[in-house]
């Protein structure tokens, strides 16, 4: 899927972008605001809103000289629209639920890179960072669950999955060395399991 517009796998046109913009807010907004949030032209969005109002999926109300638009939550199509708007969160939820079943559990697991930033495309990697507990080999049961998660995440999204895994000791060494990967993880990773990145990767306090 397009990591910057996950809904585009199902609704690639301006309708998809406009509906997701409306799904993300509880406040009625102007057509111009929909266009800004959808990243589309105002004329294109206006035509699309007119059509969606005609179908009853979008509500229009007058506000002075302008019109305000909102998603009609009672419409039969509202639930799938809300789900489309939540696709990235659904990916995070499924990753977390899968990691919660792991034995042995990771010390830490997070998503980073374009999937975390939300700025990738259809061929961008899903980058996962895993820290393995001390005394757990990187083969056997651990390797099996890493492989299963990679395969599953690839199926959920259609994107290739890249896993970087470290032992607790190697991770501590990289933190002490202020490795660029650690800095990147501090800036953009989203926690999925275990010790939060901001605690695990915290720089040592200066004396």
């Amino acid at each position: 899927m397009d990591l910057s517009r996950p809904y585009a796998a199902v609704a690639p046109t301006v309708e998809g972008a406009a509906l997701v913009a409306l799904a993300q807010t509880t406040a009625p907004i102007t057509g111009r605001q929909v266009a800004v949030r959808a990243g589309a032209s105002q004329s294109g969005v206006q035509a699309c809103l007119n059509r969606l109002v005609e179908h009853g999926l979008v509500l229009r109300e007058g506000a002075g000289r302008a019109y305000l638009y909102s998603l009609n939550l009672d419409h039969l199509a509202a639930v799938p629209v809300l789900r489309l708007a939540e696709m990235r969160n659904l990916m995070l939820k499924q990753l977390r639920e899968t990691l919660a079943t792991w034995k042995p559990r990771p010390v830490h697991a997070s998503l980073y890179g374009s999937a975390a930033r939300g700025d990738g495309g259809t061929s961008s990697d899903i980058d996962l960072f895993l820290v393995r507990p001390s005394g757990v080999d990187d083969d056997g049961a651990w390797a099996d669950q890493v492989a299963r998660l990679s395969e599953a995440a690839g199926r959920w999204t259609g994107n290739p999955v890249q896993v970087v895994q470290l032992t607790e000791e190697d991770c501590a060494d990289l933190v002490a060395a202020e490795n660029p990967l650690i800095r990147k993880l501090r800036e953009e990773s989203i926690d999925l399991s275990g010790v939060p990145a901001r605690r695990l990767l915290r720089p040592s306090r200066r004396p």
Partner: protein
Amino acid sequence: MTPADQTRPCTLVDARKRLAHARAFLDQADLAGGNDPEPERAAAASSAVLAGIAAADATCCAVLGMKNHLDHQGAVSLLKTVRGANQAANALNRLLNLKGQVQYVGETSAADLRTSQRAARTLVTFAEHSVGQ
């Protein structure tokens, strides 16, 4: 709705920048614990407040394309217009209620610090999910 003159347009780039600020402030907020001296608790709780405000900005910029720039209650109201943000908006409200006590009254209890850290984490987590959605 939040009055238009209390908001400023902002972009996904701004959202990412504010999220980076929020995470950095949260790191500072987590440096103190309940057993640390009161000044350190106050500094950490202040950082938690800043983390929460920055995270709310990040969410609003990413989802609404605008952020509040005047009063703090306006920021809570604007955040509430993001679907699913009720818990985050309540966390922001808690942080803003603590702000005056922490920064001006000068008595930050261990419970205040825990509350502020928890609220800031709620807001940063929500912002992480919102930015790039």
